[in-house]
């Protein structure tokens, strides 16, 4: 059985990262449901989930056939690329260099896009809405699937990581059903900053293990890596903020 020290980072990374993605998918499905009705939007979202689950069910078992060192190396590198891209963007958003992600604005843009698509194709809202919900769930779900596989597959923690992701889905759906509007008050950039830190730390850890590096402290090395990436993210953000402040003065 996996120790808590190994499972906790995987569960929390999967929970937080999936939460961010599910909030984005929820905004798209909500926009689709607002114009096309809940039935079509729910059908589109369900079809997207079925496609994702089918893909994972087919591809998941193949991971067992990949040698563990190679799996750790490939997943580690992909995590580094993915996590550092998130962390870079979150640092730039924190510095005010690029605008914060605004779920209300995304919702308005999705509604406008849906109206334009329905007009262009001279078709009913419900079909376009269903397709929009389907695509939203598939595209955002791809990232959730990757994150779950990436943080879970290297150490046989796929089930705990999946549970973390499912908990995030359930939380977003419950809150979304209650408030019935885009979840714009979720501190998305803070979450993305934290997730970028965790995924980057996992990336260095798995890449190193794949290269045959025995990290001191084993799983606890993840905490040190996370602290260092957090510091680097903050430093980058402070440096990025400086020139614009000087210009303002």
């Amino acid at each position, binding site marked *: 059985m996996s120790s808590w020290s190994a499972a906790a980072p995987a569960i929390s990374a999967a929970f937080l990262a999936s939460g961010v993605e599910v909030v984005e998918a929820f905004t798209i499905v909500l926009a689709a449901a607002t114009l096309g009705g809940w039935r079509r939007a729910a059908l589109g979202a369900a079809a997207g989930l079925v496609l994702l689950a089918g893909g994972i069910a087919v591809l998941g078992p193949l991971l067992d056939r990949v040698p563990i060192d190679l799996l750790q190396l490939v997943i580690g590198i992909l995590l580094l690329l993915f996590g550092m891209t998130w962390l*870079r963007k979150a*640092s730039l958003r924190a510095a005010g260099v690029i605008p914060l992600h605004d779920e209300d604005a995304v919702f308005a843009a999705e509604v406008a896009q849906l109206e334009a698509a329905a007009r262009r194709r001279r078709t009913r809202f419900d079909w376009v809405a269903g397709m929009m919900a389907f695509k939203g769930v598939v595209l955002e779900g791809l990232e959730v699937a990757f994150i779950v596989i990436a943080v879970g597959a290297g150490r046989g923690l796929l089930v705990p990581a999946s549970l973390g992701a499912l908990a995030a889905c359930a939380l977003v759906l419950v809150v979304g059903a209650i408030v019935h509007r885009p979840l714009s008050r979720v501190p998305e950039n803070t979450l993305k900053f934290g997730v970028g830190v965790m995924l980057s730390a996992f990336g260095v850890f798995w890449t*190193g293990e794949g290269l045959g590096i025995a990290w001191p402290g084993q799983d606890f090395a993840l905490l040190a890596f996370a602290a260092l990436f957090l510091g680097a993210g903050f430093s*980058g*953000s402070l440096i990025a903020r400086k020139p614009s402040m000087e210009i303002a003065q």
Partner: protein
Amino acid sequence: MTLLKEIGTELVAMFLGDARLSLTVLSVVAGAAALIRWGGVDPLAAGGLLLVGCLVVLIESVRRSPRPER
């Protein structure tokens, strides 16, 4: 077909959203691997270089990002 194209675009954007950042990270990983494989460097020392390299790449990538005009 459009959906497959969008999925492909999404996957590329996930890992190669910033081509320069991605290439630099891949270079750091390749450098650490080469040091272990052919340089005879202690794996832990190469791991230290991997970690420090990634941190430096991140800070540098944020620092050199274009600022919006005011």
